[in-house]
């Protein structure tokens, strides 16, 4: 293991930038992500920053079942995120469609059909602590020794 990889590991463990993309949810999971920013949970004490900008993001939070407008655009946003990257599905909607997956719906869940998902947080909506623990547990698995794992 090189010194450069050690420096990268140390930097990446304390500066995770998060972007969230709303692909057709009811805003319920949206305000739970916003609640993570509030002083009660305080996501920034773990070195996670929510900037909502895909170009500087490491973690993409996907919220909602996929509406027809998002079918091709979600893949575009995923391609714009620089490597290493990881996607986390928040709520029931990206997993199964929740209440929207019924007869006559316009949505096409699950979101795994469009981008690779590393972790899923079920719940309608999930608790902010669950979102926090999901990001904190999945990020080191992907980001640690990323360059050495590459073929």
């Amino acid at each position, binding site marked *: 293991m090189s010194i450069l990889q050690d420096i990268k590991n140390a930097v990446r463990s304390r500066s995770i930038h998060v*972007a969230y*993309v*709303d*692909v*057709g*949810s*009811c*805003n*319920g*999971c*949206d*305000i739970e992500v*916003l609640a993570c*920013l*509030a002083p009660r949970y305080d996501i920034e004490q773990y070195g996670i920053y929510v*900037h*909502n*900008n*895909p170009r500087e993001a490491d973690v993409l939070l996907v919220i*909602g*079942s996929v*509406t*027809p*407008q*998002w079918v091709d*655009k979600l893949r575009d*946003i995923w391609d714009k995120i620089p490597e290493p990257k990881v996607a986390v599905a928040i709520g029931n909607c990206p997993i199964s469609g929740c*209440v*929207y997956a*019924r*007869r*006559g*719906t*316009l*949505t096409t869940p699950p979101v795994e059909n469009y981008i690779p998902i590393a972790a899923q947080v079920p719940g309608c*909506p999930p608790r902010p602590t669950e979102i926090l623990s999901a990001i904190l547990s999945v990020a080191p698995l992907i980001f640690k020794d990323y360059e050495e794992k590459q073929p």
Partner: protein
Amino acid sequence: MKKTVDVSIPLGPVHPCWKEPVRLKCETAGERVLRVEVELGYMKKGIERIMRGRPWQEVMFLAERVCGICSVIHNMVFIEAMEQMSGITVPDRAAYLRVVVNELDRIVSHLIANFSYCYTIEH
């Protein structure tokens, strides 16, 4: 002499300042924005299509999912529509309680909006 350039600026659908996706096409002349084209429909899930032809007990919770932030008022409107259709009159006590719940919902909604704006400008 100051040189002005006409630029068409596309914004969205994902933007750091916005909490929900929308697409704007701004036609500008220098610093001034002349025309804006708004593209909506990124959140169209077809809730009306799901609701059509189902009993009201089955879609009552779906009316709350129109908007997660202001879910009480959407459910209230749905329930009031059902009451008007079936000719039910609400007792006074229930009407007072509904006002209280709606005001609480409005306070929460305004607090979330203020938090969101303040976080966006980072103050």
